[in-house]
């Protein structure tokens, strides 16, 4: 989709870029500050997952809409080692240095959340937050 913002993620500094971009887009669209913060926090967690578990990936910010609302969709994709989704969604699961709270936490902060991953094939996390009027 044109006008999507794409951020390459390969290191620490990119996590900050993700936060900044998401904050910018969400603010422009008129999200409340608390909702902006929720999205930025979720983006931070998901971007960090890429840095920690895969080394390289990207975040895509898309504007979406359904019949009644506007929203922002964040897509985090990488070609890293992938994982077993069942295990990862249990709070506390972690193979890396992280807390393992990345996925369940981000899910709580967003309205829609989808994870596709296969061991050896990479991961795609898609999350949507609708604009509350």
């Amino acid at each position, binding site marked *: 989709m044109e006008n999507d913002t794409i951020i390459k993620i390969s290191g620490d500094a990119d996590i900050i870029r993700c936060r900044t971009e998401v904050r910018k887009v969400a603010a422009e669209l008129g999200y*409340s500050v*608390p909702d902006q913060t929720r999205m930025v926090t979720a983006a931070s967690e998901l971007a960090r997952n890429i840095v920690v578990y895969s080394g390289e990936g990207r975040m895509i910010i898309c504007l979406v809409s359904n*019949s009644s609302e506007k929203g922002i969709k964040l897509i985090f994709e990488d070609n890293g080692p992938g994982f077993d989704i069942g295990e990862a969604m249990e709070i506390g699961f972690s193979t890396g240095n992280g807390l393992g709270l990345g996925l369940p936490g981000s899910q709580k902060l967003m309205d829609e959340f989808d994870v596709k991953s296969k061991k050896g094939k990479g991961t795609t996390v898609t999350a949507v937050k609708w604009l509350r*009027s």
Partner: protein
Amino acid sequence: MAPKKVDKKKGQFDALSLVGTPIVVIDRDRKVLFMNGFALDLLGKGLDEVVGKKCYELFDTDHCNTDECGCMQAVEQETSIIAETRSRGLGDMDIKYYATPLKDENGEIVGCVETLIDVTEIKNLQEKSVLMAKEILEVSTPIVTVFDGVLTLPIIGTLDSQRTQQIMEALLQAIVETQARVVIVDITGVSIMETLTATHLIKATNAVRLLGATAIITGMSPRIAQTLVNLGVDLSELSTKSRMVDGVMTAFELLKKKVIDVE
């Protein structure tokens, strides 16, 4: 294969003129075959001005030329589609439309019959309702400063996710603005507390603490205390008083103030 054309029998669509809502008939190329009087009135055009024209040129809606076009969906899925959109061709009118596949005598789909309803009025009322509901929420949960640095928040009724969100946002903002040190959350008006509400309440008290203020819950009934205990909440961690007035006195103590009689 050439798209199926509709055999134009004379008066084929005349019956549609009797129906009291705007109706548009198009073929698979989205060219207008017929429009009844009500539809023509909406567009302010005569029948000869619209027949053969592309429907999207006339109506220019948000769904036109996209996957969301109800008529195309009706034709492809061979079913009736109901959708809502906005039509620039009708002066930015909010419309609800019903699209049904039009079949010839062999049962082949040759086009689409569309009924339009102007829902502008309804949408306005809906928006007004939403606004009113918001106002009611704000009014029903007033945050009151009873003393310098002490806020009270009486909770009446049930706390659903959205309401809790709004209350918490308003409360935290108030703490920052008034530099409050104590927040008294009075739940005397809450008769039954469901698990979800209780969880929200605990979250609210935690958030208050993160801003450096003390949360005191007053008016907790034994039943609600039981709900919290069942939830695994350590009640000894919560500051609770049975009456609001005791909550206020505790707040004074925390602020190192006391009430004395003036001679």
